[in-house]
């Protein structure tokens, strides 16, 4: 596997060959069959019908749809002409980008001169994006391109949508399922080894379970863990050196006398800035002792919190500099004296009561279909209620009831248990 520094792990470890792809086996088989069929029919001069010329990989994010196309192309000697639906979304643009390459068997030599006689796969990624609001024509363009194409076309999309009806007729659909937990754990373990990261299997399993079968988010979580970014930290034991790193960083920041310097220190951090104010808050007792100072700092942090929430809900990143001003300058200027000799231990902010817990939560979404409450409400009122009921059964019945409930809601008992843990003890 080729490694370049500074790539996010999801890119760094993106498989470049079929054998590096985890799981996904039946899908790979179908894609290979599709390519083989295309080639043999074309060679023997047989007429290909639309559904034989294009396949549509439909499935949730982060399971290898885009990856598999490149990996197979690499293994089988194709070059890939990609059209990414998020960049180009109008009919005209689609036609311009693809028409030339699609109707002739060897063109696009300007892209890859040496490989000019290679076979080609046309990849139309994220078809979902094409049929967006005003660009209805985009879909039409693709359908007609399938008709005239002399190259195999592979498309990907996330969700079934009635907008794709036309596409379904013109292509063969492959339904890709989310990956199994064990599959994800396997890859995570490999990556951890390569990164010289010591994490035990329970943590990996927790990450995998949490990802809902999305390899991308699992890898991201692992990297986050390694960097000190916390996605769902309650049950993840942070690495000791990272804790120390953060604590040292906080002390260094408090040593600064000017806003500028404090902010400069901040620009060197490599952990998730979204919860910086919460990290500072959790560690205040070890750093600031005077009540008066403490109050000032907290007021600044509340402002920072509000600001961050606005940034996140409105996606207004132009506000980000102010956030950094508040958590750096706003904080240090409020403190007359801080304790730097502190033998203090790094403390994790308590994120369990926060939006982070719900944010990516497929389980809560599942429960929502039954209880009709918002996710925070389900976490705060419904789950405790269920926990109470379960706990009133004796030990031998508990597991049975848990299973009954999990089955009723279409989630695994393990998942449900994770939520009910608080009530078990």
């Amino acid at each position: 596997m080729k490694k370049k520094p500074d790539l996010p792990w999801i890119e760094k470890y993106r498989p470049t060959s079929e054998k590096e792809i985890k799981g996904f086996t039946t899908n790979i088989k179908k894609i290979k069959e599709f390519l083989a069929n295309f080639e043999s029919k074309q060679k023997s001069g047989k007429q290909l019908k639309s559904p034989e010329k294009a396949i549509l990989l439909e499935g949730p994010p982060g399971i290898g749809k885009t990856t598999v196309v490149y990996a197979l192309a690499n293994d089988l000697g194709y070059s890939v002409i990609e059209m990414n639906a998020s960049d180009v979304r109008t009919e005209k643009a689609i036609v311009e980008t693809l028409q030339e390459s699609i109707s002739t068997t060897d063109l696009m030599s300007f892209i890859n001169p040496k490989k000019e006689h290679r076979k080609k796969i046309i990849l139309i990624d994220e078809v979902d994006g094409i049929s967006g609001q005003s660009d209805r024509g985009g879909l039409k363009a693709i359908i007609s391109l399938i008709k005239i194409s002399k190259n195999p076309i592979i498309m990907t999309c996330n969700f079934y949508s009635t907008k794709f009806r036309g596409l379904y007729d013109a292509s063969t659909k492959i339904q890709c399922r989310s990956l199994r937990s064990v599959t994800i754990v396997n890859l995570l373990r490999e990556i951890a080894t390569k990164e010289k990261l010591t994490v035990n299997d329970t943590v990996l399993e927790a990450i995998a379970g949490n990802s809902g079968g999305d390899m991308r988010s699992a890898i991201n979580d692992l990297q986050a863990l390694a960097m000190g970014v916390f996605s769902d930290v309650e049950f993840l034991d942070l690495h000791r050196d990272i804790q120390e790193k953060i604590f040292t960083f906080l002390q260094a920041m408090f040593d600064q006398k000017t806003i500028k310097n404090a902010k400069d220190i901040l620009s060197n951090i490599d952990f998730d800035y979204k919860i910086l104010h919460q990290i500072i808050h959790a560690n205040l007792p070890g750093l600031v002792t005077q009540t008066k100072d403490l109050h000032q700092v907290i007021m600044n942090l509340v402002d920072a919190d509000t600001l961050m929430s606005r940034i996140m809900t409105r996606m207004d990143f132009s506000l980000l500099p102010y956030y950094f001003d508040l958590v750096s300058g706003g904080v240090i200027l409020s403190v007359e004296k801080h304790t730097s000799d502190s033998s203090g231990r790094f403390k994790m902010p308590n994120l369990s009561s926060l939006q982070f817990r719900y944010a990516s939560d497929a389980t809560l979404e599942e429960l929502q279909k039954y209880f009709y409450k918002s996710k925070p409400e389900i976490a705060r009122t419904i789950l405790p209620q269920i926990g109470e009921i379960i706990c009133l059964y004796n030990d031998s019945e508990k597991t049975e009831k848990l299973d009954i409930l999990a089955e009723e809601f279409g989630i695994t008992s393990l998942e449900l248990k994770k939520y009910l843990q608080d009530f078990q003890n």
Partner: protein
Amino acid sequence: MKDSFLLRLKYQPKTLDEIPGREEMVKDLKEMAKSNDIPHLLFTGPKGFGKLEMARLFAQYVLGEGYNSNCKIVYGSDPLTQAERDETRRLSYIPTSRVGSTAGRKFTWPAFIFSRIKPFVELKPISFNPYKILIIDDFHLLSDQQQGFRRLMERYSAYCRMIILTDQISSIIDPIISRCNIVFFNQIPYSAFEAKIGEVAKQENLKLRGNIPKTLYIATNANLNSAISYLQVGSLVNPEITPDTIYQITKDDFQENVGNLLRNALSLKTNSLRIPLSNIKKSGRFFNEIIEIMGEEVYNLPIVEIKKASILEMLSQIDFESVDARSEDLLLDNLVHNLIEIGVKLT
């Protein structure tokens, strides 16, 4: 379908007609549905009065078999998921390949509308329904994104009707109110509540002693779903449910803890804050509930009225500022420090 193991789900009304105590409202809504052209609706009334239940069963009544594909429920209090954020960010960029003055520019979309509302309202209804129904719970939480609905409600009204739910009608902006027909929710009458509890008890062979329906009616503020859930818990605690059983399981020391926090902070007993604080955190209540209860406790403080007023002023200020904040630990800490500050002035 198999009965749920949870009684609250098992006895959840499945159709409009099964909703206890709202016969009048149901009749009116059905009348409205006859015209085959319902207006946008706004349901308002306190939490737990069954607004969402009414809304979704009404949608089900109107859409029939099309309900699953043509009705969507969104929750104003659901935080955006990572995927929704990414999606918004990704689409906020207008590529340079586009011509016109917007090419290459970044836009700020109201993320909620963009990721949750638009994709639904833009699609024409599937199958034979003339329109879709979008139900938005806790609409007031959308604060200034409410503006974005003005256009949506008009532009897509040809095939999408909205039912907006809120327990704070004063926070709904006027242009939205003017686009909706308002339906007010009151507490359901005791007789209907009592009848339903009786029915559940009979079906489940529960032994009730004393006036359980009344106890539940008061304890849950007439919320049948919670009441039925308490019945289930009660029956497991005690084979024969008495009012005492109900008191025991609905007992809530939240108010007591909030009161202790208030008094200890004001009297600068900083060492005695830890216990009420951790109990409050454990209770899992929302920050605004803490403020609300604390406000009630202020009246009982043994201090002169004018000082109470200054505390209340501080609370309202904090409440106001907390609307957009996310970290409740931080808010709580801030509250305590504000109380201590007032406490210092008091002594």
